[in-house]
């Protein structure tokens, strides 16, 4: 019962936030839309690849530890 209420509440909040955010963004002038896309796009690519970088660093340790144990 509580879980169902929690899920419903979460869905309502998400829907409201998404609708609000998208209404705000679609109402922006074209130049602002372009600049925001560029800014978030470039920063986003760097952040995602930064995450991949840390993932590779972790994998390197994981892999080398396993191979050392094997030896």
């Amino acid at each position: 019962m509580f879980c169902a209420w929690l899920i419903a509440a979460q869905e309502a909040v998400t829907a409201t936030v998404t609708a609000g955010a998208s209404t705000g963004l679609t109402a922006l002038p074209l130049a602002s839309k372009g600049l925001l896309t560029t800014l978030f796009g470039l920063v986003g690519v760097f952040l995602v690849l930064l995450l991949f970088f840390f993932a590779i660093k972790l994998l390197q340790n994981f892999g080398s530890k396993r191979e050392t144990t094997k030896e």
Partner: protein
Amino acid sequence: MDVSALLKELFSGVVYMGTAEGLKTLVMFVISGILIYLAIKKDYEPALLLPIGFGAILANLPPVIDAVTGNPAASVLGSEGFLTVLFNSGIKTELFPVLIFIAVGAMIDFSPLLKDPSMIFFGAAAQFGIFATFLLAMVLIPVVIPNIAAMAAGPEKDSIILRLASAIGIIGAADGPTTLYVANHFKLTEYMAPISVAAYSYMSLVPVIQPPVIRALTTKKERCIRMTYTEQRAPRAALILFPIVVTVLAGIIVPMSAPLVGSLMFGNLLRVCGVLERLSKTAQNELANLVTILLGITIGSTMVAQNFLRWDTLLIMGLGLIAFVFDTAGGVLFAKFLNLFRKNKINPMIGAAGISAFPMSARVVQKMAKAEDPYNFVLMQAISANVAGQLGSIVAGGLVITLVGMMIGW
């Protein structure tokens, strides 16, 4: 039916060639001929340019007229034409880009990147051109493209400008499948021909486009910088876990990139798992060849004269080239920026390999390094940046779809 009407119907193709439309057809035949010439004589990515060129010839053949009804009958295009069937089933459904990525994933060796993960940032820096061109396209599209210029200001006009600008920007990533994916996602069917032709032809012109940009931005001394490379191999467990981890991370953070990242990484897992040699080889050879044939001829089929011989095409081709140049410049300048803080300098040419054209871009960089200093070997670092560029362009594509989608309320 008199004899002249009969002859007209019988030789409708010959009659068609005498009309204004026929003249456009001839121009398209010349363009197709140039593509085929570049493929055969100059060896510029023949696997793509030849099918594209021949597809364009097929798409511009005179329409077949039914002798009884006088209506257009089935030809290579039209609702039942085999090229239309290929387009609807392979491009509209985004199936071909995804299948191509399985093949590309099976061909890519990520071990140089796993050994030197710092190269991954060149894959991000070389996406600079996408966004710079996106902004430039936003300024030029409403001025140059007549039907967009004629639209009243409003959300609809903003939507087409943003969608078209994003697809043009992505051309700079030198990643044909991602360009097709973005253009198709934004329902840019009308502009598909110049966008895809620009993406694939510039990809094949990497050896022509990149060297002058690299030379303009670097000194001879910088091009001669040597970089050390350890022969130590990447741990097998890391190679196997990498495609799985990247798929999960990309799927969670940029869900729009999941189909492309997922297929690329699936192909790579086939390669590195070590127990599916047969499937890996099939993905690398049979699947890659088959989809390349179908993709090439289908892209060529979009080059119908009335969609291609327009000012938009020149704008898209021109901006695509600018995107390519900006991407190369972004990577090189980022490497030079890093060198300001590093003790062990990076050869800035490595940055140019951060675009997605794999492995052409890395080969170009190695060739240039060797031309400056015959004993300079930067291929492995360039390959690392190049595979990072493959990841970077897909992530950029996913982000552009997400962000532009939010801006236009899609």
